[in-house]
């Protein structure tokens, strides 16, 4: 698997500085500042319309802020064009979706290889190893329609991990899962976290949010709470500056 270059030790992998996103009169994000150290598991919570999705889109290089600075891996991505954002997303971010978003006519293995294809070169052995890591090696040749929801989410996780991203961004990863599958997914996240992965997990579920090192709460586009659950690799200055 490829490995993105590591940032300087004292530099957070993600840093928001006074970031705002305005749609007409609506402030989806309002001067949010946030720093996420390498290796931290950050949970983002908040009611619907609080700006979680906007924040995730900006972190995932799927959208650009109206104002403020966003540094990902030490690089300011706020002013990048779509091509530049695609490049950053491809090399640095692994995305995990609530509804899995697997390509229906490709097998589990092929879905993982698609992410390799757009990143560098498809490697079946590596893709199979990623599936094995999430406990799905035996289901590698099954189509998404032949997999349970939990299995599909694990394929989605394998796909997010396959290119060894520096940041794993999960949007309601357990939102469509039952308790048993939620536990499996959270266990996987714990394993990844233990291995040093940086996780940003957006969730409505307080149980899921409580698993992270830190939990921030968004309301009306503003960051209103920043709670540390346990010692994190590096401290955050959190909150609106």
């Amino acid at each position: 698997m490829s490995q993105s270059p590591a940032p300087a030790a004292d530099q957070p992998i993600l840093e928001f500085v006074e970031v705002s996103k305005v749609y007409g009169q609506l402030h989806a994000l309002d001067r949010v500042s946030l720093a996420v150290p390498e290796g931290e598991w950050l949970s983002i919570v908040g009611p619907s319309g609080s700006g979680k999705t906007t924040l995730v889109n900006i972190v995932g290089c799927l959208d650009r802020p109206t104002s403020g600075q966003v540094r990902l891996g030490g690089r300011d991505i706020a002013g990048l064009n779509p091509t530049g954002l695609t490049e950053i997303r491809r090399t640095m971010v692994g995305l995990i979706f609530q509804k899995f978003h697997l390509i229906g006519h490709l097998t589990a293995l092929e879905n993982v290889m698609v992410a390799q294809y757009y990143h560098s070169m498809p490697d079946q052995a590596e893709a199979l190893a990623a599936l094995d890591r999430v406990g799905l090696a035996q289901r590698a040749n099954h189509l998404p329609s032949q997999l349970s929801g939990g299995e599909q989410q694990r394929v989605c996780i394998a796909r997010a991990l396959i290119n060894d991203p520096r940041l794993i961004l999960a949007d309601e990863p357990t939102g469509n899962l039952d308790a048993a599958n939620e536990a499996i997914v959270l266990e996987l996240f714990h394993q990844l976290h233990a291995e040093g992965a940086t996780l940003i997990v957006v969730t409505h579920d307080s149980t899921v949010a409580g698993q992270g090192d830190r939990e921030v709460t968004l309301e009306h586009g503003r960051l209103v709470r920043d709670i540390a659950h346990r010692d994190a690799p590096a401290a955050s200055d959190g909150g609106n500056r």
Partner: protein
Amino acid sequence: MAWLMLRRSLTRRRSRVLIAVLAVAIGSTTIFALALLAIDIPRHMSQDMRSLGANLIVLPADGSPALSASTVEEIKGVLTDSEVVSVVCFRYANVRLNQQPFLAAGTDLAQAQKAKGYWDVEGDWPDQPGQVLIGRDVASLIGLAPGDTVTVTLTQAVTAADPTDPSDQTDPDGQAPEPPAERSARLSVRGILTTGGNEDGFVVMDLSDLERLTLSFDLVDIVELSIDRDSASLAELAQTIDRQVDQVSAAPVRRLAHSEADVLAMLRSLLALVAVIVLALTLIGVATTMMAVVTERRAEIALRKALGADQRSIAWEFQCEAMVLGLVGGLLGAGLGFGLAQAISQSVFQRGVAFSGWLAAVTVAASVLIAYLASRQPVRRATLVDPALVLREE
């Protein structure tokens, strides 16, 4: 990986692929069939129009006697077998029926039946000497019907210069007029002939019957040829006959030749117009289908973009897929189109059409091009989709 994704998309999305392939195939079937017919129909039409009568007439040159059997053979020698649809010779003589003058035409009736497809015979065609066809006007005037017997009395043979003019008293050898003969023959009326032309006033009999009546043998006044050529090369053929055969005058039947050319030109124009309309409808149909297929996969496109695909690679993948669909649809269409053209040709012309390899290749290439053009805009629009779509769960 791109090939794998393409293969999987084609083999595992069968219902969608089938719809897209069918959209292309229906268009290419119609276009291939129309094009094949546009090439083949003029050939069939030309052959069929030959049965409407002669398009080349050979007469004795001015001042020349009737044409001998050897001259007729010389004329036939100028022609190639493949282009000759029919050759019918006529000998004319003035006769009387019930004391009324008419013109008698002697010919090989079997040949005439094949060549004169437009002759309408009430009753039957004569099938042996001693039987005649009576023109409708003659039958009406004298009161004849099939099955009757009629006495035909020779008045005088006429020249081919004006076979319809019974007053012309020059004999076939160009000799001085002889006194009217009174030779007669009793002939059986086999059928009543209606053509809408001069023949309605004729008594048409076997050439051997007329020869016995006129006592002149192996002479004809006119040779009517039906040749499978267009009007321009028909004129050239007439000139060739004039040059190579002595004492004859060949001339195309201009009205028929020009009418044939006009009909074929109109038919070609009509087929071309229909083909263009079908092409436009196919383009619209395929574009609509491709738009539906691509729109249905917007979420997949957004996902690919979210995974790091750029617009160009997505457009390339989807347009390759469209072109493969066009290729499959085009191949299917060429096969089905040949079947359709074959069925139409059999049903309308009672003949098959020959498969055209180059036309099939053009049809397949056009199908690929149509699929590419039809998918270009929907794919372009789809690649502009916001990848955040997948995160917003829309």
